[in-house]
């Protein structure tokens, strides 16, 4: 039996926003019946302000696929389209308190559906459809594999399969997947993402602080706020990042540690694996 979090089971049993929006401004369909999971996401957009007014889903799949879809709709409603697009699959997983590694592809499915729906709304081609199909069993392209591998810092073939399903069918493409992975690992995480020690070394201090600031504002703070917490950046000194943390249980030492761990993990992923998060305690 999978160890699903309470949030996953809650969204699975009482899924939010099931169905189709009244006025379909954008529609994304990913997966297929034969692949074992499929998600149809429809969005209704306030065109004047570019805000997603409503989002609804229909999902065929396991408990985590249904929960991920439900979470996705909750997360994007009320956001601007641009803001919604900053969502990563990890954010969906985080919203649900985490997913088993073998089920991470369910969160990727959500992210892809969102991108497809927005692309449809904007009348452009979705990103995931670009590139060359590497895994024929599940129709996964090299572009998609590379992106998911980079944003989630995947290092093994097993992880690539857990996150994208690629290589999980007949297994013929596994050699190609290894090549892609080797290329990514060799090159480092390169441009958008943030990542390993080398690229961080080339970053100027100013850019580095800016990246930390952005990561906290767009990725970390929203996650904490969902649970009634907050975070504020106080100072950056080399690898040390000083923050103040506010949680609903601010006085509880164990809950504090969890918050700090979460922030550390995110900053290491988004900025630099060497980062040490320290809590700033005003006298």
């Amino acid at each position: 039996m999978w160890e699903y979090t309470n949030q996953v089971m809650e969204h699975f049993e009482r899924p939010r926003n099931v169905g189709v929006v009244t006025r379909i401004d954008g529609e994304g369909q990913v997966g297929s019946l034969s692949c074992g999971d499929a998600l149809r996401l429809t969005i209704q957009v306030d065109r004047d302000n570019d805000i997603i007014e409503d989002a609804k889903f229909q999902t065929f799949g396991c408990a985590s696929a249904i929960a991920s879809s439900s979470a996705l709709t909750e997360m994007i409603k009320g956001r601007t389209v641009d803001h919604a697009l900053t969502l990563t699959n990890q954010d969906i997983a985080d919203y649900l308190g985490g997913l088993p590694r073998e089920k991470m592809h369910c969160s990727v499915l959500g992210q892809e559906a969102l991108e497809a729906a927005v692309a449809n709304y904007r009348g452009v081609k979705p990103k995931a459809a670009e590139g060359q199909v590497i895994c024929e069993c599940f129709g996964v392209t090299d572009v998609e594999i590379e992106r998911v591998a980079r944003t989630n810092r995947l290092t093994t073939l097993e992880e690539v399969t857990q996150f994208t399903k690629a290589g999980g069918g007949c297994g013929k493409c596994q050699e190609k997947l290894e090549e892609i992975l080797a290329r990514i690992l060799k090159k480092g995480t390169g441009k958008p993402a943030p990542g390993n020690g080398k690229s961080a070394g080339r970053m100027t201090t100013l850019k580095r602080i800016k990246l930390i600031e952005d990561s906290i504002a767009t990725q970390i703070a929203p996650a904490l706020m969902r649970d009634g917490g907050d975070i504020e950046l106080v100072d950056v000194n080399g690898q040390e990042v000083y923050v103040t943390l506010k949680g609903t249980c601010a006085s509880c030492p164990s809950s504090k540690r969890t918050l700090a761990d979460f922030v550390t993990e995110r900053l290491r992923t988004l900025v630099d694996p060497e980062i040490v998060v320290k809590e700033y305690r005003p006298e």
Partner: protein
Amino acid sequence: MRTIYFDNNATTAVDPQVLEAMLPFFQGLYGNPSSIHHKGGEVGAALRLARQQLADLLGCVPAEIIYTSCGTESDNTAMWSALRTQPDKRHLITSRVEHSAIINNAAFLKRLGYRVTEVGVDREGLLDLDQLRQALSPDTALVSLLWANNETGVLFPVEEVAQLCSEKGVVFHTDAVQAVGKIPINLKNAKIDLLSLAGHKLRAPKGIGALYIRKGLKFSPFMIGGHQEGGRRGGTENVPYIIGLGVAAKLAVERLPEENTRVKAMRDRLEAGLLKIPFTRVNGHREYRLPNTTNISFEYIEGESILFHLSHAGICASSGSACTSGSLEPSHVLRAMGVPFTAAHGSIRLSLGTTNTDDEVDEALRIFPEVVSKLRELSPFWKDDGPVQDSDMLTCEDNNCQVCN
């Protein structure tokens, strides 16, 4: 909440009579049967009775049975013995729907240079006997087949295959883990050389299995050790569990008629009721199968989701869907049968036992339609009362897709 346990092919509850018979052997009767003193002697007598009870269930003599730790150990012992005792033969035959104990050993043997033939099955899960006949060669060391399939309950004609093998001088092994206790077995007149069974499928605890080794068959032990089991399996006897398996075997003999009448009737009624839900199908031959098992596909929804909803309503079942196992493809058994992926992903196995009641069947027939319609309402492939015909997502766009083809 009341539990309705329809997963007896996964494991069964230890029978109270079995537990009761085992308990004295943890404390008072703790002797080692190999010991010469009276503490050893009193255990030895009980072991002889237990072995006789199991022999009665199988229709063999007690000396033809060795105890193991589980069905998997029995399978390993059988396979490796057959290969070690015939070192010149480098070919084995099995099927595409075997248990992982056999599949993974066969894969390992391939790497060692053995030739492996995996005989196919038809759409109803029945063995392709012609293919098996043609595959038999003077180089064949072993044929190993499931007697009853764990997922579908479909039976293979093992007695017929055993006869065929015997004529050709090929060793025949059957994994009868699911068959023992559910269908009549009489090894006395069969040409079966080796047969595996597991205690926990017939109301004994987990941790005890047995292997039948036909008298006169060349044998090489898997577990090399002391003189126990006639030197065929080293290690001090798992006394309480062997005693438990003996009592379970005795009960299985007594309950065999009930398995094939009352349990079968409940299975049939459950199955007929579930088939009234639109877009459902049974996987596996309706006649040549275990009396307690049904494998049903609910199309356009996914197995893991069904199992969770069932579980919350108290029903325990299994699925051949991809998502439950952590693999990405549905069960190899359903794929070998050519069950379309659209149905394989929504397959549920229900396996009943003598502990189940008619009330439970009624309750399940009330719960199932609710669960299925709840999930179909969520499904992008379902609208109102039927499947969406024109969805782009019914199959993937790729024509070379290995999954669809």
